[in-house]
């Protein structure tokens, strides 16, 4: 029935949204957003990467620190809900400067789930 349906859609995707107010300006924003997203992707559709550009390797010093097991990476979150998180390293670049930042991935994110299943599979072997 209708009640159940609402719950299903909200499931797993709930964000803090104090109290959403439906209005024309907001609806317009949403379609403008869709358009911006589509146009941005379209603009890139014909871009070809320069040879060598895609040579992205994880530096050795990063490799050694990043190679930890799920259990080692798991820790308590800093957010108020105290949901456990998993530490990952984010590689970014600002201009020519490479940066490595530790980031906290939610324990229920797809990324983390995949990491865990992979480890389990490896252990089973």
């Amino acid at each position, binding site marked *: *029935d*209708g009640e159940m*349906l609402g719950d299903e859609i909200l499931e797993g*995707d*709930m*964000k*803090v*949204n*104090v*109290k*959403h107010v439906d*209005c*024309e*300006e*907001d*609806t317009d*924003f*949403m*379609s*403008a*957003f*869709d*358009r*911006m997203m*589509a*146009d*941005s*992707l*379209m*603009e*890139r*559709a014909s*871009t*070809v*990467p*320069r040879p060598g550009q*895609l*040579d*992205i390797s*994880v530096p050795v010093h*990063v490799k050694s620190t*990043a*190679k*930890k097991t799920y259990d080692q990476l798991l820790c308590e979150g800093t957010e*108020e809900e105290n949901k456990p998180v998993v530490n*990952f*390293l*984010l*590689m*970014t*670049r*600002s*201009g020519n400067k490479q940066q490595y*930042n530790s*980031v*906290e991935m939610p324990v229920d994110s*797809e*990324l983390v789930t*995949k*990491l865990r299943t992979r480890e389990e599979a490896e252990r089973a072997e």
Partner: protein
Amino acid sequence: EEDEENAFYTKELPEWACRYCGIHDPASAVMCNVCHKWFCNGRGNTSGSHIINHLVRAKHKEVSLHKDGLVRDTVLECYACAVKNVFVLGFIPAKAESVVVLLCRQPCAAQSSLRDMNWDPEQWKPLINDRALLPWLVRVPSEAEQLRARQITAQQINKLEELWKENASATFDDLERPGVDEEPQQVCLRYEDGFQYQNIFGPLVKLEADYDKKLKESQTQDKIEVRWDIGLNKKICAYFTLAKTDGDMRLMHGDELRLRYLGDLHKPWSGVGHVIKIPDNFGEEVGIELKSNVGVPTDCRDKFVVDFVWKSTSFDRMQAALRKFAVDDSSVSPYIYHRLLGHVEVDELIFRHIHLPKQLSAPNLPTLNNSQQYALKHALQRPLSLIQGPPGTGKTVTSATIVYQLVKQTGGSVLVCAPSNTAVDQLTEKIHKTGLKVVRLCAKSREAIDSPVSFLALHNQIRSLEDNGELQKLQQLKEETGELSSADEKRYRMLKKQAEKTLLEAADVICCTCVGAGDPRLARLKFHSILIDESMQATEPECMVPVVLGAKQVILVGDHCQLGPVVMCKKASRAGLSQSLFERLVVLGIRPFRLTVQYRMHPQLAQFPSNFFYEGSLQNGVADADRTMKGVSFPWPQADKPQFFYVTAGQEEIAGSGTSYLNRTEASSVEKLVTRFLNSGVKPEQIGVITPYEGQRAYLVQYMQYQGPLNQKLYQRLEVASVDAFQGREKDFIIMSCVRSNEHQGIGFLSDPRRLNVALTRARYGIIIVGNPKVLSKQGLWNHLLHHFKEKKVLVEGPLNNLKESMMQFSKPKRLIN
């Protein structure tokens, strides 16, 4: 508590405080690289986080994070190619290490070589999910923090963004200054007199004009490369590609662009031209035909700038019509004057002297059915009538027959208008068939554009005038040499004017757009009978342009159950400019005469629209067999019902990848359906793909041409357009992609019943709707539609060659209040 709240506002906030709501936790702060303003990653009461709200509304695309944030002091950019557009950025994880890297979706994350380098590109996820930045990148402020911050609304955000365009340092407090908020006066149902009418509509037309002007003039683009060509009429044409703008502005044939040369290979030059080609399925190039061939730097290719030239003509004509209606008592008959103003004390008038012929048809046009004949009689006998033509009910034939009979009855000339050039051309073609003398008056800027009725255009009829050797000689000379001596030019203009006058005066019927009726060449003429087709798509002032040319008899043809006029300025639209004259007259109690037999849709397709938009009054003029295409084998789930709802609740959405606003799942379903149609012998021209959002349209075009298994050219010939672009037209098969919505939005665009009506009534042989029923079923009318499909056992899912009835449950339909 109130003090605490005030303290929050008055305290000096750091520079990284959100310019909307004031939240200033560095972990939640993002800076726009274009305007250097900071915003937070909370959504308050809107559907996107504040930074995303800003980026979208200001059309900015690049951001940086705070030095004390979750990820320190970073300009977000692709690790490989350094692109900074945050709308294409995402991340992928390494296969063996707990490392992720920022990569753009195209082309970097799409490279298969990544896999060999131990990355997992399959897991690419965008940085923007559900219209907010990922929470591990930029913290989402807690509910408590958001409740304590300034509760800015989407309207206020909009206004603030508008203010920033004029004053970059404006703050929230400036919103409350007088002047910003002033709303124009609302339109009325009835008006005291023509002055009150003008006083209300004049400012609304002005608002719309200002909006249009601002929009056009802000569109200058530089670094344009030009390809030169010579048109058939020896005029120089320039072709170039414009960067994709925000899409708010659609370039149209006949628009004016100014091209300027900024390089140093030639002396400074600028020239104005009319648009003769716009981007389409075949190419993104824009083409203009220059007004003058003199001094054009055709040996230069790059360093050009393109400006959009705003023309006030159409708005000036509406204002002039409003003024004329107010002050000139010969502009319309007293009866029409009072009826249009809604004066109820005026009794309905019937022309008793009209002698109705037995044969109520027109030569070379199909004989009219009963409802069409009634409509015709009704219109001929009355000074003001409304004819409602639901989809496929022969509106154009009926209008053409009415025009034919009017000419026969009155002997005078009839003015025929419609808001769009396409609609005018369609009607012109039909009226010409009856043998009447028709002149199609085009705007000067559109003379170069070809149409099926070009030979009826005034400027072309002048060329073929037999007894005017001198004019033709001068014309030829002008075309060959490009320029005439000033004496010759003067003589040429005089002769041309005379010839135009002769042709216009001799015509039985003059056809033009509503705004075209304000052409100075018609100013001296009087028209007693005026027919306006598709009149629900014109604003009231637009309708008034032809009406004030002396109307004693006005026939408005249209359908207020289909889409209304496009008004771009929100303020003007809110004040009622988007309500058509047709609609207001219906509300005033003038009963529209409805055409009731539809000849377009397979009877199964007509059922729902008939019941929900026309009180079940539509009858079918075609049988199932007439609308079953022989030799085409398509896997309709019910062989005798060529329609289905294709349920797409794809894996993607469950995985929450966040990219479904583009709706790749729907695009791929649409591609498969199209391919299946093409493989079964349907021609691309017979298929129309409808989507309510421009974003999805562009994506679909691209997707099909790159991903479809058949020749790219085939997909190019297929029409993919918005619902609005399909109004007034038909296709044999329609596929509609609804585009998924989520919990932060209603279904917006699709919830307008008039738009749904138009979408459902374009197909002749079959229709397929691709969408997510769960979301759509929350809206009343869609809920009914889904139940209708379910009852017919055509709500289906699964692969195309094995469609199965979907068992999805949704709430019972509520009774609709119309």
